[in-house]
C-alpha cells in the first residue's frame, strides 16, 4: 500500500511539472465548476441566511432544522434526483442540460446551499446582542445596528463560503450522475479518480487525489490567513 502512495506522490509531481493536458483539463474544469457553483449558491444562500438569522418568524426552528439536516444529504442521492429532473423525459429535459458542465454547476450549487445558509444563520445569531445594543445606545438606527452585526459575522460567513467550495470540488456523486464523466466535456478531478480506480491505475488515482488535496489545502491556508486579518 505504501508503495502505491509513494508512486502516486511521484506521479503527481511529474503530472504537475510536465503539465499533462488531461490532468490540467480536469483540474481547470474542477476549479471552474466549483467556483461557479459557489458563486451561484452565495447569490441565494447569503440573503436567505441573513433573513433566517436576523428575523423572528413562525416556523423558524423548522426551517433551521431543515437546512441543518440537508447538510448531510448523500451526493449520489441528490445526483440521482437531479438526473431524473434533467433527463430528457424529466420535467426539465427540454433545457438539454444533462451531461453538460452547467448541470454539474447547478447540482453542486444546490448541494452547498445548506452549508452557506446554516453557517450564515448561526454566524449572524452568534453575534453578541450587546453589540447591537451598544451601537444603538451610541445613536445608531435599527438598520445601522444590523449592519454592525453583519460586519461582526463577516469572517465566519467567508469561512462558510470557502468550506462549501471545498465540498463542491471534492464531491463525486453529482459530477458523475449529471456530468457523465465525458472526456473533455464534463470530466473533473473526482470523476477522474473514480475512473482511474476502476481501471486499476491506482498510482494515477493517488496522483489526482494529491492534486485535489493540494487545491483544497492551499485554499484552507489562504482562508486562515484572511480570517486572522
Amino acid at each position, binding site marked *: 500500500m505504501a508503495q502505491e502512495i509513494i508512486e502516486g506522490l511521484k506521479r503527481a509531481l511529474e503530472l504537475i511539472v510536465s503539465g499533462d493536458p488531461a490532468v490540467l483539463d480536469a483540474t481547470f474544469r474542477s476549479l471552474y465548476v466549483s467556483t*461557479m457553483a459557489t*458563486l451561484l449558491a452565495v447569490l441565494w444562500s447569503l440573503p436567505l441566511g441573513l433573513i433566517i438569522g436576523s428575523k423572528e418568524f413562525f416556523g423558524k426552528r423548522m426551517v433551521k432544522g431543515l437546512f441543518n439536516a440537508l447538510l448531510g444529504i448523500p451526493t449520489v442521492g441528490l445526483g440521482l434526483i437531479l438526473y431524473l429532473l434533467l*433527463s*430528457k423525459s424529466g420535467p426539465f429535459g427540454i433545457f438539454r442540460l444533462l451531461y453538460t458542465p452547467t448541470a454539474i454547476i447547478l447540482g453542486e450549487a444546490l448541494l452547498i446551499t445548506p452549508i452557506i445558509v446554516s453557517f450564515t444563520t448561526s454566524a449572524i445569531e452568534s453575534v453578541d446582542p450587546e453589540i447591537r445594543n451598544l451601537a444603538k445606545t451610541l445613536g445608531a438606527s435599527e438598520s445601522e445596528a444590523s449592519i454592525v452585526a453583519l460586519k461582526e*459575522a463577516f469572517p465566519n460567513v467567508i469561512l462558510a463560503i470557502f468550506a462549501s467550495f471545498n465540498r463542491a470540488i471534492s464531491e463525486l456523486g453529482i459530477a458523475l450522475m449529471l456530468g*457523465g*464523466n465525458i472526456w473533455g466535456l464534463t470530466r473533473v478531478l473526482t470523476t477522474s479518480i473514480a475512473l482511474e*480506480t476502476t481501471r*486499476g491505475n491506482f498510482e494515477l488515482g493517488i496522483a489526482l487525489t494529491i492534486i485535489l488535496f493540494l487545491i483544497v489545502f492551499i485554499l484552507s491556508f489562504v482562508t486562515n490567513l484572511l480570517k486572522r486579518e
Partner: protein
Amino acid sequence: MILLWSLTLLITITISAAFTTYYFGVASRRRLIISTTTSLYDTGLLDAIEEKFEKEYPIDLYFISVGTGQAIEHAKRGDADLILVHAPSSERAFLTSGYGICRKIIAYNFFVIIGPSEDPAGIEGCNVKDALTKIVKAGREEKALWVSRGDESGTHLKEKALWTLVGFNWTEIRKENWYVESGTGMGKTILIADEMEAYTLSDIGTYLKYYGDERISLKVMVSEEKPLLNVYSVIAVNPKQIHDVNFEDAITFIKFLTSKKCQNLIANFKREIYGKSLFYPAVPLLRESPNSTIAQWIKEFAYFNGTECPEEYRDKHPELYG
C-alpha cells in the same frame, strides 16, 4: 456583506456570459452520446476507437460508462443515442419494447472463473457445470467463498444465468454464507475476491489488467467454454420512440464499428501488452466462417430468431446486414 453579494452577482454574470459564448462557439461539431458497459470503456478500447473515429468524421463521441442495466435505462429515458452492451436477454427486450433498433454484434470474448491458486474447491480444468457445483459444495463445507458483483451489470446477469444453467436457484444460494455480494464494479470485486481468497466471475479484460499489474494473485480456473461466452452488441435508439435522438450519426458510428478497420483495431487492442486479445472481432467471423464452432455458439447465445437483428428492427438500413 451587501458588497460581497453584489460583487458575487457581478462575477457570476460575467463568467457565465463569457463561458456561454465560448461553449456555443466550440459546439459546432455534432454530438453522439453513447451509454456503454464499463468493461469496454475501462479497458481503454473505446478511447482508441474514439480517436480514430473523430479524425474521420465531424462527430464528437461522448461516452457515459455505466453498467448494462443503467445503459439501457439511460437510452429508454432519451439520454443516449446509442448503447454498447453485453446482455442478449436484455437487448432482446430493448428491441421488442420498441426502443432499440439496428442491433449489430461487434465483438466477443470469454468470461473467466478465477480463484486462489490453492484452489480449495478443486475446480481447475473442470467444465463450468462441475466447477460451479464444486464451488457450492466447498462453500457449504466452509472451504470456499464466492464473490458476486450483485449490481445487475452484464457480468452479474451472466453469473445468474450460469447458476440457473448448473441447476441452482440464485435467489436461494445468495442467502448462504459462502456467497458474498460486493455490489460494486468489476475491478473492486476482483480485489475483494483476492483479499478473501474467493472465487469470482470476471470479464477477461479487467482480470488481465489487474493480474498483469500484479495487484492480485487469483488464477484463471475455467475459460473459453460456451457458457462463458460474452457477446458485445451495439444498438441505436429508435427515433420513432424517442424524439430527436441523433439517429443519423448513430448509424454512421455503427457502420464504423463494423468496418474492417475498426474490427482490426478491436482484435489488436493491447494484444502485445497481455500476449492475447482482450476482445475478438465478431463481424468477420460471422461473415466469413459462419459454420465455425464459435460462430455457432454466438448464434445460439446472442441471435434472436436466427439473426442478430430481426428484419422488423432494421429500420431502413438493410445494408448493415448485407
